[in-house]
């Protein structure tokens, strides 16, 4: 029965891989997944076997020793400011969790895994802003997304694990229609009716990984995560009679067609090279290098195309009344981000090793050089280099009860991300935004409980 379930899950996951299209951002990219991974600075690709392998390296699932169920909570609060004023970036918070189901098919170790981040607030947030409006491009609403991943892994050889799967997110499309009459000289008397139709649709992206055990103490890993983007295409249609005063006869009928084409959230493809070294019996060090293809990032600005058609009234326009002209289409300024190489460092020290329990202390560091170029022109995609320092504690209880022959693990983490303040200098003195000084920090706290059966 268990093998049948595994096979069914495998077929479903493989089918999903085959049709994988584009998907969108995950909170794990910014804040990690699971407390152990976050506490170790995200350096997990070659040293992960729990549910978080669904994000860090699907191949790690094949290392699971038994069925595991994990559940946790994380909360990241942004204290980012511009010119000394809090920018009001909302926190990212929600439930994290997942499952790992290992087994064997034809004597080959095999595992299925799934992971979830379920935000407390909106399941999906889109914030389409003018390109000159200042915003923390990599933090504003971007990470507050539902995230689901499903993966399969096999270990065809004792020293080799392979895995892959898909992650699921959501996209929004919609149509806005407005009809009625607009009073030219008394806009407050206009009578307009509107209707909005919007859809939330699932999108997905692939990820694959491999892990090679060079020696009993050293392992290497390679991971690839696909590129994905979220599109928000909004079409608005306005048709209405133009009158001089409310309730007066219609002079003419105006037609206003607006179409937007917006990539509201984009996650670049990533490649990870990871290494794990068990330096001593109770001490392990990990290093991941993540290549992020930020240069493919499209400008997150709505390209707006407007068509305004107002035929003149039969007797011409009244004196002093001039019909509006069609606004010029948006000229989107390229964002020109550059690729980055993100180092992740993590260490884990087993400070206690008793027959019934084990204790762990973990630490980590991650350096994200900002991929966004100096914003000296008209755009204001604010970002700063990020230094993320993390600490964590772990407690593993074994053979806690006859009904729980496996283990019970509790991991906690605290992560402080520092974004050093620096000035953005505008090339034009007549810039509406002007020079600004931006920086701040982010606190990330959380815990994960894992039950191993």
């Amino acid at each position: 029965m268990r093998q049948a379930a595994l096979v069914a899950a495998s077929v479903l996951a493989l089918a999903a891989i085959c049709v994988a299209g584009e998907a969108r951002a995950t909170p794990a990219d910014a804040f990690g997944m699971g407390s152990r991974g976050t506490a170790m600075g995200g350096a997990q690709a070659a040293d992960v076997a729990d549910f978080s392998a669904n994000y860090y390296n699907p191949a790690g699932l094949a290392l699971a020793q038994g069925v595991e169920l994990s559940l946790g909570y994380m909360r990241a609060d942004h204290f980012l400011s511009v010119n000394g004023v809090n920018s009001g970036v909302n926190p990212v918070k929600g439930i994290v969790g997942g499952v790992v189901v290992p087994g064997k098919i034809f004597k080959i170790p095999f595992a299925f895994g799934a992971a979830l981040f379920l935000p407390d607030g909106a399941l999906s947030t889109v914030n389409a802003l003018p390109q000159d409006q200042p915003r923390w491009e990599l933090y504003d609403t971007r990470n507050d997304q539902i995230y689901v991943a499903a993966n399969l892994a096999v270990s065809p050889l004792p020293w080799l694990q392979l895995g892959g799967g898909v992650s699921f997110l959501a996209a929004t499309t919609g149509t806005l229609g407005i009809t009625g009459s607009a009073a030219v000289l008394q806009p407050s008397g206009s009578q307009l009716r509107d209707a909005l139709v919007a859809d939330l649709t699932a999108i997905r992206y692939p990820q694959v990984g491999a892990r090679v055990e060079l020696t009993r103490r050293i392992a290497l890993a390679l991971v690839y995560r696909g590129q994905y983007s979220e599109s928000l295409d909004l079409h608005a249609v306005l048709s209405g009679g133009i009158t001089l005063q409310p309730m007066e006869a219609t002079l003419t009928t105006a037609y206003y067609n607006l179409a937007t084409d917006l990539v509201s959230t984009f996650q670049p493809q990533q490649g990870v090279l990871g290494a794990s070294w068990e330096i001593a019996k109770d001490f392990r060090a990990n290093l991941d290098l993540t290549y992020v293809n930020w240069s493919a990032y499209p400008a997150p600005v709505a390209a707006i195309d407007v068509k305004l058609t107002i035929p003149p009234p039969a007797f011409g326009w009244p004196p002093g009344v001039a019909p509006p002209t069609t606004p010029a289409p948006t000229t989107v300024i390229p964002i020109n981000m550059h690729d980055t190489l993100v180092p992740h460092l993590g260490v884990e020290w087993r400070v206690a090793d008793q027959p019934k329990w084990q204790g762990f202390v973990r630490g980590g560091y991650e350096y994200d050089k900002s991929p966004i170029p100096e914003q000296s022109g008209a755009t204001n995609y604010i970002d700063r280099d990020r230094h993320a320092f993390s600490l964590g504690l772990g407690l593993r209880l074994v053979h806690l009860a006859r009904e729980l022959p496996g283990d019970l693990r509790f991991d906690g983490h605290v992560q402080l991300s520092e974004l050093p303040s620096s000035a953005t200098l505008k090339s034009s003195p007549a810039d509406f935004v002007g020079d600004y000084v931006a920086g701040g920090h982010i606190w990330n706290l959380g815990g994960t409980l894992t039950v191993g059966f």
Partner: protein
Amino acid sequence: MRRLLVLAVPLGVLAVLEVVGACGTLGELSETDAAVVPVLPSAGVGPFRALAKGEVLGTAPFVLDGAGVAPFREPSALPVDPSDATSMSVFLYVVAIPPPIAGVTPSMNEVIARTRADDARSFYGTVLDPDTMPAVVLSASLPWEGDNLTGPSALWVGSEVYLYYASAGGIGLARSSDGLSFEKEPSPVLARDPSVRWETTAPAAPSVAELPDGSFDMMYAAGLSIGEAVSQDGVHFTRVDADPTTAEVDPVLTPLGYGAVASLSEAGLAEAGASLPFDMAQVADPCVLPTTSPAGRFVVRVLYTGYDGAPGAATRSSAIGLAARFGTTGPLVRQPQPTFSIDKMEAAPTLFVWSGGEMLYVHANAGNPLAGEYPAIAAGVAPTEVTFPPLPDGGAYPASP
């Protein structure tokens, strides 16, 4: 039963974590996630949105409206208490044509009057403030002034109010300790100089600001452009050449010009949908606003009126523009987009800054295009997210101007 307990305990711990995490606080931001209204960085000069219905009594966006009886133009804002950044009390010096009173004001001459609002919106002497009129503080009285005084520019210099103004013979200065009774300088502080070829009209529409070193920087309109003059004492001004590499005295801001517009057209920009510059024919009415940016750079910002047609053209429209430069000398750089545009021939910007935002005052055409229009003082605000407390019934007009 024990199996259920084994599972229930960790799930219970997580439930507590969830509740604590959802309700917990990590500092000022987390008290209420939704209560934080982001304050975006801004150079403090717009873009402005026009005040809306409900934000002013009467017809929005007009805050000082003589309803055609007493037209008001060319405002100059002066904070009532410059030491109190939170105060929204503001004086406006405006050009007015008072209604004729037999034996007192016989002519239709333009004078300078003062009004006041304590909420930056409800001005003493507007049409809805019954039986009041802004106080006339300055009228033409010297031979070189001609009949009309226009273009007031008021600023605090210590405890004195310096009021610069334009007249037929150039730019004059009057000083006052109470802001109502002024004593004029006998001669213009900047008169027309025939050697400056671009000044085809007398200097007008002055705007003066005191710089951090105690000197005075004046910008003024003449011909179709804006020029600059400086003074150490605020009385004796010397013209500044914006481009010393040429032999002539150059203005700091010129209209983009029809030649440049033709170049745009040749480059295909106009055909590609780029709109023509709003200030291609004339720039006027400077409002000088020096400041230091958050990064420590000294910036001279100038709000001005831009026209897309020459003076006297059958059709021309206007908008309020922004130009600026880094440092104390040199030509100004234009912001391509207007900072305020309401399609009512808006002109003569002036800015009032308080801790909650910036209020822009201009004159614009009030009334109905079918029934007749007249100039009145309109207002816009930035950042556009600024909201105002509701006005009490009958307004909140001050008791005196």
